[in-house]
């Protein structure tokens, strides 16, 4: 690696080099090279199965890399974990779990208080402030099994907001939420951005992409294009991402799988 390159890596909140990931031997991400500048509101966009969620998981070290490296603020994820807040897909958990909204938000502190730490009144205060921000303060004591989809998403975002993070990773926060929740989420993301944070959001709806984000990563098993919204969001790139089958990559991926696991 050239010296200038390593200098650059240190300045980026997120930097991926030659990252390849395979799931059950089937490659899902190919040689991803990506640098996300600080303070951007980034849309991570691509068709189903393009590897968007996988990419978030890889960034947090939840997926083994076949090759390549991921750096956050120039360091490994384990070193800067406290600077990253993750909002998983809300369908990834069972909302019938016996807990209140406040209980879930307080989970945002568990990473910091450690194995035997205690939740203090100050933590509760901060959790309530986070709930206030997402407009859920009055639901703090509500059982999570009674929440609507939008309220579930707000609860998850509130949990992330309790973390003093510089990079926020959101996995499909807009999936099946009501319009007012969508607006509230966008509003909060913008205020985070104004506070100098970097936000990366997996998103599905192409119509709202240019409106919500100012930086775009188009993904379909590889990074098709990445850059500022104005110069990246255009027909040709979208065509490359969505249009036509990604025949060659798809075929090679199939072939590898067939050969290795008959």
């Amino acid at each position, binding site marked *: 690696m050239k010296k200038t390159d390593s200098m650059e890596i240190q300045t980026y909140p997120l930097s991926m080099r030659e990252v390849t990931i395979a799931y059950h031997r089937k490659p899902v991400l190919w040689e991803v090279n990506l640098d996300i500048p600080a303070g951007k509101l980034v849309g991570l966009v691509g068709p189903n199965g393009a590897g968007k969620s996988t990419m978030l998981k890889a960034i*947090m070290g939840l997926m083994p890399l076949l090759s390549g490296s991921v750096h956050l603020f120039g360091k490994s994820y384990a070193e800067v974990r406290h600077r990253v807040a*993750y909002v998983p897909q809300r369908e990834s958990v069972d909302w019938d779990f*016996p*807990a209140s909204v406040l*209980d879930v938000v307080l*989970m945002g502190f568990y*990473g910091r208080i450690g194995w035997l730490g205690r939740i203090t009144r100050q933590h509760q205060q901060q959790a309530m402030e986070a709930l206030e921000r997402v407009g859920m303060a009055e639901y703090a004591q509500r*059982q999570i099994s009674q929440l609507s989809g939008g309220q579930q998403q707000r609860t998850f975002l509130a949990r992330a907001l309790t973390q003093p993070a510089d990079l926020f990773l959101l996995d499909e926060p807009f999936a099946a939420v009501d319009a007012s929740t969508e607006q509230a989420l966008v509003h909060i993301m913008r205020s985070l951005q104004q506070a100098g944070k970097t936000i990366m959001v997996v998103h599905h709806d192409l119509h709202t992409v240019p409106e919500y984000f100012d930086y775009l990563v188009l993904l379909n098993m590889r990074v098709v294009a990445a850059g500022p919204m104005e110069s990246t969001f255009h027909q040709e790139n979208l065509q490359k991402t969505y249009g036509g089958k990604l025949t060659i990559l798809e075929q090679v991926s199939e072939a590898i799988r067939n050969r290795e696991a008959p």
Partner: protein
Amino acid sequence: MNGSDILVQILRVITLQDYNTRMVMLGTGLLGAATGVIGVFLLLRKRALLGDAISHATLPGVCLAFLIGVANGGSGKSMSMLLLGAAATGLLGGLAILGLRQFRRIKEDAALGIVLSIFFGLGILLLTLIQQIPEGHAAGLEGFIYGKTASMIAEDAMLIASVTSCVLLLALLLYRPLQLLCFDEGYAASQGWPVLWLDGLLMALVVAITIVGLQAVGLIMMIALLVIPAAASRFWTHQLPKMLPLSAALATLSCLVGATISAITPRVPSGAAIVLIAVGIFLVSMFFGKARGIYWNWLRNWKLKSSYDREHLLRDLYELVELERDQKKLGKQALTDISIPVDVIEKRRLWSHGRMLRLLYRLQLQGLVLMQGKDLVRFTASGCKEAERLTYDHRLWELYLMTYADVDPMRVDRSADDTEHALDPEIIGSLKAIIDKEWNGEFPPSPHPLESTEQGGAKR
């Protein structure tokens, strides 16, 4: 044994007169508490059947330990050896499941089935072998399968008590990590919690509980004690901090009562007794549990439904009276004077005659209507007022739906019917503000022909 002997025996057991009984009760009680707590986590992690596979996987270990003991010239009944054997194959079984799931693409349920049947089959095979040994003192081993608190001695109980106390302590110390693991594995991992190790720890706790529980509950019924109290406690509360002690208490109760039964009638396997008590508790919880019991649910629905019926009937009667008045051009005061035949109301609802009469008699008891014989009904003054309010709200809502939600006028009555009960005074207030402007505060007529209301066929 005559009746008074039995009474004396029962008294001896429940007043804990001898040292052995006291220790056995203490041991099984603590076993219950620890099993109840671990069971909750196991259930929330959706790994309940893992406990079943582990407990079944202990059988070959018990048999092997016995055989090794006999081969070395002993009786083979050293408790610590037997439990050590149980722990070895139990752990092996658990690891086999995790391994199959992790590294081969076998789904969890299949992995569980495979491991459970292989280990248990092996155990049964060994047990048959043991029974053919001429010395033939294999009888004690059956206690491990069905549970036999009666054969427990104070030392066994001490072992149970110390292991379960450790398990209990560990589970409570690690309450937060375990809670997070059970609720949101992905987030836990992103926060740096060692998810794999936590799962392994949970499994180790299950193994520890299962091993010391073998004597009391038996390996077949162990899963019941892990799952049933935990599932029962969910019917009473929506909060984990309350679910844990409740599940522990229910499991302890089952264990103590079951052990008592087994102490009084030594031929009853304590495992069966304990589980039957637990099932009884579960059934009571399922029906009467405050948080989501069937009875409370049913009662809530019944109350809602009868309030809907009441509102519908009052409004039907009001609209019929109103129609009659307008057709005959009677004055406004006449509303309480007009009687309506019951079968005319009946045509507007798909209710049976019996249900209609029951509802009408209930309204009469509330002083809202007056029945004239069995066929005619009219309003009292207060009934008319109440019905007028309901009708007014209904029409506001209908008008709103038609004007602002583009609902078809011919269907608006039905959609309003289904939703209007949720309208609280605050919403009615804002509806009023919107609609009143168009009607200058007058009582709006029905926005659709009233005769047509029930022609949509069976919708209810």
